[in-house]
């Protein structure tokens, strides 16, 4: 409780389960994808921070992209995020493929989707605006 005192809490944490389930994940088209042995290597373009100007930029290197490696289950979930299936459908397919109960699949997939959202790999359409825009910022 003390953590959130005086501050609005993270809108992502307030997302109702129903909102998340009915939202549709879309992949960020600017992300480049390389298959690896077990999963995928994603390169996400990043914006140069405003404060990164000379002379700071002479010292601090800026790569212009962030790399994220996904394992095989992560790859399976990302491939299910095709812009047509809702999160609920992604969970259903994932749970069926891996013989999980819906709740087990829900816990695994929703955590993973939130992580993809934070890293700008996907955007969720059909979420409350505050949440959806923050993920792609």
């Amino acid at each position: 409780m003390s953590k959130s005192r005086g501050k609005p809490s993270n809108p992502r944490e307030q997302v109702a389960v129903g909102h998340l389930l009915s939202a549709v994940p879309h992949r960020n088209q600017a992300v480049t994808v390389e298959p690896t042995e077990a999963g995928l290597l994603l390169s996400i373009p990043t914006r140069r921070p405003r404060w990164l100007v000379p002379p700071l930029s002479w010292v601090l290197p800026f790569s212009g992209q962030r790399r994220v490696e996904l394992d095989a289950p992560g790859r399976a979930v990302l491939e299910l995020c095709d812009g047509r299936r809702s999160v609920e459908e992604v969970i259903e397919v994932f749970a069926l493929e891996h013989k999980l109960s819906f709740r087990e699949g829900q816990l695994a997939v929703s955590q993973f989707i939130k992580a993809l959202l934070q890293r700008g790999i996907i955007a969720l359409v059909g979420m409350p605006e505050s949440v959806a825009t923050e993920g792609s910022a």
Partner: protein
Amino acid sequence: MMAKADALRPGFTQTCWRGLAIAHPAEWEAARLSDQGQPNQLSLVDRRYQRLEAHWQVLKRPPNLDAMYERLGKSLREHPHKQLLGQPEWRGLVQDGPVGQVVHAGRFFPAQSMLVELVLIWPQGRDQQIETAILRSVAPTIDRPVLTWRALGLHVELEREFDLTEASSHVGRVCWTFERAKPALWLTIERLAMGKFWLKNDLPSWLAKERPEKFRPINLTTSSGSQSAVDAGHQIVRLDSQWGGRVARLFRRAQRQVDFGWLCSEQERVYRLVARWPAHRPAFWPESLLVSCCRSVRIKV
């Protein structure tokens, strides 16, 4: 116990936790289960909503259920509610909410001196057939010699002397630890999903890796039937190990550990059972121990 589970209404499953058995729609899954030392509690959720909350406790004398629910009715003054009807053994209220209805129901089981209180949430309105099936299925089991523990896909039967001291549930990994004080025996039972991703080597190597380092291996056997284990068709790996040198043995601190592991190909789950006991005496193995995967697996040392 199995007969009771088999006689469930179609589409229903049973959850058994800390001396209470309750049948409910299979799509309602456990979201909260009480730990040791906490008041007994069970919460079930469907995809979007919490659907059932159960609290139960053993009382010294029967409670006045009418007075209990009258008090609850007074506290719900602002919300329209009516008495629960059609369930002669239960007392309670039906509360109309902004979305759906909430049923508060309580029953005292005199044979076990147990008070069970349920809250059923019906977001799309009450389904009285399901409600009746749930209420009728509620059964205290604390007075049985063998208790059933069934939740989160794991199903264990074990003598009442064993207490569940630890229960954890992470994504695809459910783990329960039972303990019997005298004669001391610790049992840890795990059920793990998605083995094809994390089980890189074979099952014996994984079992050996999971064993605490201080335990020295004594023996590794694999059986698919009659030997040390089992009346199921699964191939069961057994790993015997021991901890403690001469000094530990002298002070009776040495411990024996046996790890059993098997892969249930039908469920695609890996099961692991770890038993630990003082090395200076036999295990006093619980005869009733049964772990169910796609079939009932009876483990024996």
